C-alpha cells in the first residue's frame, strides 16, 4: 500500500463517514454542515498524522540498530 492508495482510503472513509452522519443525524442544513465540518476536520487530522509518520519512514536516514542484549 503506497502513499496515494492509503490517502485514497482515508478520503473514502471521510466521505462515507460524512454520508453516514448525513443519513443518521439529519437535523436541518446548519446542523448537517456542522457535522460535516467535524467529520472532515477529524479525517484531515487523522490523515495528516498518518501521512507525516509514513513520509518520515519512506526514505530512512537513520536505520534501526539493535541493542546489544538482543
Amino acid at each position, binding site marked *: 500500500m503506497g502513499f496515494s492508495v492509503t490517502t485514497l482510503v482515508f478520503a473514502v472513509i471521510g466521505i462515507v463517514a460524512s454520508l453516514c452522519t448525513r443519513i443518521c443525524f439529519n437535523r436541518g442544513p446548519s446542523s448537517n454542515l456542522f457535522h460535516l465540518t467535524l467529520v472532515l476536520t477529524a479525517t484531515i487530522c487523522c490523515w495528516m498524522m498518518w501521512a507525516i509518520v509514513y513520509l518520515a519512514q*519512506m526514505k530512512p536516514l537513520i536505520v534501526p540498530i539493535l541493542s546489544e542484549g538482543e
Partner: protein
Amino acid sequence: MGEVARRGCCPPMDLFRSEPMQLVQLIIPIESAHRTVSYLGDLGLLQFKDLNADKSPFQRTYATQIKRCGEMARRLRFFKEQMLKAGVSPKYSTTPVDVNIDDLEVKLTEIESELVEMNANGEKLQRSYNELVEYKLVLQKAGEFFRSAQSRAIEQQREFESRHLGDDSMETPLLQDQELVGDSSKQVKLGFLAGLVPREKSMVFERILFRATRGNVFLRQATVEDPVTDPVSGEKTEKNVFVIFYAGEKAKAKILKICEAFGANRYPFAEELGKQAQMITEVSGRLLELKTTIDAGLHHRDHLLNTIGAQFEQWDVLVRKEKSIHHTLNMLSLDVTKKCLVAEGWSPIFANKQIQDALQRAALDSNSQVNAIFQVLHTRELPPTFFRTNKFTSSFQGIIDSYGVAKYQEANPTVYTVVTFPFLFAVMFGDWGHGICLLLAALYFIIREKKLSSQKLDDITEMTFGGRYVILLMALFSIYTGFIYNEFFSVPFALFAPSAYDCRDLSCRDATTVGLIKVRDTYPFGVDPVWHGTRSELPFLNSLKMKMSILLGVAQMNLGIVMSYCNAIFFRNRVNVWFQFIPQMIFLNSLFGYLALLIIVKWCTGSQADLYHILIYMFLSPTDELGENQLFVGQKNLQLVLLLLAFISVPWMLLPKPFILKKQHEARHGAESYTPLESTDESLQAESNHESHGHEEFEFSEVFVHQLIHTIEFVLGAVSNTASYLRLWALSLAHSELSSVFYEKVLLMAWGYNNVIILIVGLIVFIFATVGVLLVMETLSAFLHALRLHWVEFQNKFYEGDGYKFHPFSFSLLDDEE
C-alpha cells in the same frame, strides 16, 4: 481545512456564530404581569434588562413580596434543618401541587409555629427529665454516703464509748470532754449540699472549695459510671456526685457561688433515710411519666415532619419560582399610568414566536382584556452571546468560554475545537492501551449518564462527568494515535504488515553495529515496530515527533488565520482582510510554511540537508550558495523571494491600517453632519446610544500604538508559537518513555524472577503506576497543554472573546444558582 472554514461563512453553520439576538420590549398589563413572567420563565429564552438599576432593592415595586418569599424560604430552611436533625429525608415526588402562594404562606406559618411550640415543649420536658435523672443519681449516691457514714459513726461511737468506759481514769484529759461537748453543739449548725459536677472540673472544684473556705469544708465525691445528659446544655457529660458539708451561712454563700461558677447542679436532699426512699420512688414515678410524654411528643413531631417532607420539594420549588418572578418583576419599569409594566430584554430571534405564544397564553389565562405588546427595539448595544449547545457540544463550548465568551456573532473556535482539542491531546497521549482504559472510563460515565446527572457528585467526579464526551473523543483519538505510534502499554505490534527492515545478510552480524536495512515497502500504518528498543529509536522518534509538531502547529495556526478572514468577511471589514489577514498569512507561511515545505521535501527525497542550517542562513546570508543543503532547484531564489515577502509584510501589517482607520473616521464624521434626519422614532433611540459612540474621540497615536503592539505580537508570536507546538513532541516523548519504563523495569523484571508472588507484586505496582501516573497525571498534563495550545496559539490569531453570556430568565436554571 481552509475550504471548510470558508464554506462555513456562507450558509449558517450550527455553533459557528452565536444566535442572532434582538432587543425586545414588552408592555404587559399589570394584572397579567405575574403570569406572563412565570410563563416566560418556563420558556427560558428572554434575558430581562434591569430598568430600575438606579433604585435600591427596597425602593422597588415588589420589595414586600420578595421579603415575604424570603421569609418563606427561611421557614423552609428551618423545616429542612429540623428534618435533617430528625433524620427525615424529603421525598422526591413528581406530582405537581396546585397550591396558591398565599395559601402556602399561611400553611407554612402555621406549621412553623406548631413546630416551634413542639420543640419548645419538648425541650422543656427533656430538661426536666434530665434534671430528674440527675436528681435520682444524687439521691442514690449521696444516700450511700450517708448510710456508710452513719454506720461508721456508730462504730466510732461504740469504740469511743468502750474506750471511755475502759480507761475512765485521772489520766484522761479534761479538755476532751469539753471538746466533745463543743463538737456536738457545732454539729447542729453543720449544713450540707448535694449535687453533680462535671468530672473534668471536679479536681479544680475541690481545690477552689478548699481554698475559699480555708479548709473548713468536707467534700465527698462519687463517680457516675455512665455519662449524664446535662439539663442546661443538653450534652452528654461525665459527672461526679458530690456532697459538701460546711459550717456557717457565710461558707454556704461562698459554696453556692462556686457551684454556680462550675456549672454544678445542686439538688435538695433530705437527711432522713425514710424521706430519701420516699423521694426516690417519687422521682422514679415522675421519670416514667415524663418519658411517655416525651415519646408521645416525639412521635407527633416525626409525623408532622414526615408530612412536611412529602411536600417539601414542591414547596421549595414554588417559593423559589415565586421569588425569582418577583425579582424579575422588579426589573421592569412601571408605566406612567401605573396600569402597565414595561420590560426590555434580549432574546434570540428564533424565539419570537414562542415568546408571543407565551404572552398570549398568559393574557388568556389571567382573563386580561388587553394582550401584552411585543415589539423589537433597534439598538447599537452589543447583544449577549448565545450558543445553542447540546450535551455533547456544551463541554467543548465550556472549554472555549472559560478563556473568554465570544464577542457577539464572532467565529466560534468550538467548531474545530471539538476535533482538534482531543486530537492534539491524543498526539501527546498516543497509546492505544491507555486509550482503551480512558475509553472505558468515558463509557462508564456515558452509560450511567441518566443516573449520575440526577445525583449530587463531589467536585472531581462532577468535573469528569461534565467532560465525559470530551474524554470520549480524547480516548478515541488516543487509540488512533496509539496505533500510529504503535504502542500498546508501550509494546509494539506488527499488526498491519511485517516490518520493513531486515538484516543485511543471513548472519545478522552487523545488526547491532551498522543496523538493519530497509528491504520491504514502508510500514503501511504508523511507526515500524522494529524501532522499539533499538539504539536508534530515540533519535528517530525525536526527529519524527519534532517535525510532526511543527507541521501540525503550522496547519493549526493557518486555520486560525483563516478564521480571522471569516470574521473580517462576516463583519464586512475589508481593512482587516487586506491589511491583517493577507500579510499575516504571507508572513507565517513564508517562514514557517516554508519550513514545513522543507520538512516534507526532505522526507520525500531522503536528502541529508540540514534544515536548521538552511533556515538560519536564510536570514544571515540569504545570497550565499546552499551547497549540499540544497533540496530542490531554485531554492535560493525562492528563499530570497520569501524573505522579501516576510520583510514587506511587517510594515504592511503595521502602517496602512491606522491611516485608513483615521480616514474612515474623518469621512464618517464629516458625512454625519449632513445626513438627512431619519424617522423620529429611530433617531431618538439612535441619539441615546450615539452619545457614547459619537463622542468617542479618534486618538491616532493610540490606534497606532495598538497596531504596533499587534504587529510585534504577531511577528514574535509566529516564532514563539511555532516553538510552543514543540510541547507536542516533549509530552508524547515523556509519555512513551514513562510507559516503557513501567513496562520494562516493573513488569518484565518481575516476570524474570519466575516467582508467582513477585509477579503479582510487580503486576500490582505496574497497574498502580499506569493508572496513577499515566492515566491520571499524564491525562491532566496533556489536557492542560492541549488547552494552552488552543487558547493561546490557535485563538490569538482571531478570537477576541470579549462578549458576555446570554443569561435568560429560566426556572430550569434556578437550581444551578444555589
